């Protein structure tokens, strides 16, 4: 089954897809920005500062989603002895890291008008910072080691250790007394967020997901060409 996803077979699709994904991303992002900055209402408590949520929350969601995917793919790479899983993981990491940084910075900007401080060693913020460190370690490992087998082992170990932090991030607001409010959006139970704010949030999340797909495709193609470059050297 994995043969269907071999780089040689999917390159035709991955090399053409970025321009369509970019086009779709620009459209969805434009709609999302209008919804987030103009159409959506202000909050009764936070007033217009609530609009920061439309970049902060999707960035945090996607950085968590990407890290979980990287972990799963790295483990699959080991279990099924398939290098393509590692290649996909490596291509996903840069956008995950940038989304993590966006979540931290926009969270800090949001903190100033709502909590009166740019930074607090709150459980959610600290655990997100730790996730950024795991992302950084993962990316550095790919840069500093030449031996592929060693990179696969160390990067997988980093993701396994880092994934322990993901449920901590998710449940930190329930487990500890933090400045963050508990989750307003629940998949299993009724969400406490009004639809006039939920829809812009979902549109922005879709835009951010498209952006991470775009970066992933471009990065994946780059990695594939790098491999082919080495192949040409061996001819």
């Amino acid at each position, binding site marked *: 089954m994995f043969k269907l996803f071999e*780089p*040689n077979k999917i*390159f*035709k699709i991955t*090399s053409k897809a970025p321009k369509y994904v970019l086009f779709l991303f620009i459209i969805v992002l434009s709609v999302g*920005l209008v919804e*987030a*900055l*103009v159409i959506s209402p*202000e909050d009764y408590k936070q*007033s*217009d*500062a609530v*609009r*920061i949520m439309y*970049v*902060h929350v999707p*960035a945090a969601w996607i950085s968590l989603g990407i890290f979980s995917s990287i972990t799963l793919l790295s483990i699959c790479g080991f279990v099924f002895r398939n290098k393509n899983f590692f290649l996909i993981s490596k291509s996903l990491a*840069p*956008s995950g890291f*940038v989304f993590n*940084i*966006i979540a931290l*910075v*926009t969270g800090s*900007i*949001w903190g*100033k*008008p709502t909590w009166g401080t740019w930074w607090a060693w709150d459980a959610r913020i600290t655990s997100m910072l730790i996730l950024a460190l795991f992302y950084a370690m993962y990316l550095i490992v790919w840069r500093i080691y030449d031996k592929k087998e060693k990179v696969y082992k160390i990067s997988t170990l980093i993701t396994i250790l880092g994934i322990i932090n993901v449920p901590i991030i998710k449940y930190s607001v329930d487990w500890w007394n933090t400045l963050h409010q508990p989750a307003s959006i629940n998949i299993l139970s009724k969400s406490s967020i009004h639809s006039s704010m939920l829809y812009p949030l979902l549109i922005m999340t879709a835009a951010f997901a498209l*952006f991470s797909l*775009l*970066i992933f495709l*471009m*990065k994946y*193609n*780059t990695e*594939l*060409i*790098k491999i*082919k*470059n080495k*192949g*040409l*050297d061996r*001819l």
Partner: protein
Amino acid sequence: MIYELLFMNGYAVYVLSAFSFTLLSFLGLYLLTKAQFLKEQKKFVAKFGSLTTEQANSAKSQRVNKEILANATNN
């Protein structure tokens, strides 16, 4: 309405800086990734150009190599 959008009840500086940071990060990551891609593609085309006819034919037998060359010509 434009005033409301720009002022945002006094929170515009926070809201717009958060959005600007996000969009600039997107732009930065996109440009960096694109530059890396073009660099590798250029390297590939240069290496391919230096191959002998026999080596080039052997390399061209791989579908991915053909695709890379085709994309490089389109860019």
